[in-house]
């Protein structure tokens, strides 16, 4: 597997004929923890959804390890935004995680003992094994997020896309999630995370992708997460800028 996990060439994505992402050119290195950053409406989620073919491309080409997505689905894991589903749906935590194995099962085959066992192991990895039989409404927001994470683990992928896994979770859950992501990276996986909190960027991510409808910058956090790049990404948003400046200042001091 010499080809990079993800390559995007000249990708443009439009929504209702209004372009949301322009000419994205991006190569994602293997085995890194990568933050996707940008203001609201910058197209962070759209980037994930369009490379996973959940939204049509207006133009461009996306390859996973040198092949189109349709041939590499088994290598890709996905954590959608938590609000995207109905948590009152009649399934247990274990049911949801088992869905991660459906892709490997293929048509008509029902999940059996092996799949449920695998799903149970993934739940254990996020610390939710005792709650496996709970209906998902009865879980806290952070627990629901971890169920989604466990489902992606059950996909047993090489590259993971996570859409705001830290949204609405408490600090302890955030720590647990970031620990899990770091373990994934130690296992040689590539993890892309849509992230909002600029304060934690340096602490969490090896690489960053700065996005605001165009690709502003992408690369190692140390050289890419700079005041200048953040300025270009967030434009005139003052409060965000203050935050960013503070984050950068603290980062510089640490080095």
């Amino acid at each position, binding site marked *: 597997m010499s080809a990079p996990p993800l390559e995007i060439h000249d990708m443009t994505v439009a929504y209702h004929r209004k372009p949301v992402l322009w000419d994205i050119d991006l190569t994602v290195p293997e085995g890194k923890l990568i933050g996707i950053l940008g203001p609201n409406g910058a197209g962070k989620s759209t980037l994930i*959804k369009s490379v*996973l*073919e*959940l939204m049509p491309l207006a133009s461009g080409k996306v390859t996973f390890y040198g092949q189109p997505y*349709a041939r590499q*689905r088994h290598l*890709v894991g*996905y954590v*959608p935004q938590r609000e*995207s*589903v*109905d948590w009152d*749906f*009649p*399934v*247990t935590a274990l*049911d*949801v995680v088992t*869905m991660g194995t*459906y*892709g490997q*099962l293929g*048509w*008509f*085959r*029902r*999940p059996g003992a092996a799949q449920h066992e695998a799903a149970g192991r993934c739940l254990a990895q996020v610390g939710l094994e005792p709650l496996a039989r709970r*209906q998902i409404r009865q879980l806290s927001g952070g627990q629901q997020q971890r169920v989604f994470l466990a*489902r992606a683990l059950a*996909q047993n992928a090489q590259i993971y896309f996570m859409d705001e896994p830290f949204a609405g979770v408490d600090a302890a859950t955030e720590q647990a999630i970031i620990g899990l992501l770091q373990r994934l990276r130690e296992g040689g996986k590539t993890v892309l995370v849509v992230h909002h909190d600029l304060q934690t960027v340096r602490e969490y991510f090896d690489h960053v992708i700065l996005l605001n409808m165009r690709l502003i910058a992408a690369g190692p956090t140390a050289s890419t997460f700079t005041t200048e790049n953040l300025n270009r990404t967030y434009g005139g948003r003052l409060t965000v800028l203050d935050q960013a400046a503070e984050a950068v200042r603290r980062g510089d001091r640490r080095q």
Partner: protein
Amino acid sequence: MNYLTTIVLLGTSALGSVAGVLGSFALLRRRALMGDLLSHAALPGLCLAFLVMGQRHFAGMLLGALLTGLAGVVLITIVCRFTRTREDAALGIVLSTFFGAGIVLSSIIQHRPDGGAKAGLESYIYGQAVGMNRQDLYLIAGVSLAALSIVAMLFKEFKVLSFDPGFARAQGWPTWTLDMAMMGTLALVTVIGLPAVGVVLMAAMLILPGATARFWTDRLGPMLLLAGLIGGATGGFGTLLSAGVVKQWLGFDPLRFGDTESNLPTGPVIVLSGTALFLFSVFFAPQRGVLARLWSEMRLRRKIGRENLLRTLYELSEPALASPAEISIDQLLRRRAWSRPRAHWLLWRATRSGLVAWGPGGARLTQPGVAEAARLVRAHRLWELFLIRGAHIAPDHVDRDADAIEHLLTPELLGQLQTDLAAAGVAAVQIPPSPHDLSRPDLSASTEPDEEPPRV
């Protein structure tokens, strides 16, 4: 029970069952009204098919119904996509337009000189299960079997599609095709049910069993199974009730409609039976039912009352815990905003469980009572300390906030609190002293949820 009634009974049971299963999916996908649209939009199709074939041909007319029903669905998608009309509005518009067209067409047919009145179209509007014959039953049985097989085969696929379509698609499932298979099957079932239940009431056959089943289970498989059973049972029961069979069994008329010759319309009776079962579930289902929720709310209230009583007694006798003094009700009432009867009731309950000894001189904590109260006071004060240090709430405001949450703290969380506080320099004593003045009346009692208990 005669032969004709048996045919109708089998037909409506099969219909109710399969409609319940498919309707459950529609319900979970928040498309409960899709069945309503399909059935209303089917009416013009029935009429057009009759006009084309010139005679009443069951299968042919159902094909027509299916086609216009699906055309209605497609039209909604188009209207939503290209005209900025919201889905609910589009549904209302398309549904009534098709139904109106159907009514106009059927009245044209009925007034034709060549015996259009025999088309029996009016029976499709309100349904006429008694008209069912052996061929109809075979068709219903065939479609039901096919529909249930599709659901059984694609259970896993339908499950992930219904729960999280985006994830399903990313995983490689052809969600559009699966969706079409699901909705197509739903349309087929709807159309097959029209002659028996009618355009207007078909939606209830689809929605009621699933909505009822959801009250009793938290898992998809059991929910579908239960919806099928409920649909089949109400279909069969409604038929028997309307055909007067129940009346014969009982020896009297439970509905008291007098005239033994006139049967009630089957479709509406089926729907009303389903509604009865739904209402029963609304009230009596465990966990989700109204009574179960009231019960758990009451238990929470009782628990909070008991804990507040013990804590207040503890704090009033804190100077001499080894031999707690007797506390009068007036002393208690100065500290908590209870009514006198409520204080009496709480004391009576606590006495009965051996935590309090209550005599003419007042109430006193027993040894088990002191132990239990100590546990509660510890929770309260740890939380107060945490709020003062962690949330920077002023000491004279903290009591009320702690009151709202302390009843819900778990032992693990308390352990964690103690560790955190110890790390922050608060000595890890078993029961920390109160961080605020205890002599002042405790107005926090107003947070005691006689009105509104904290949501769990």
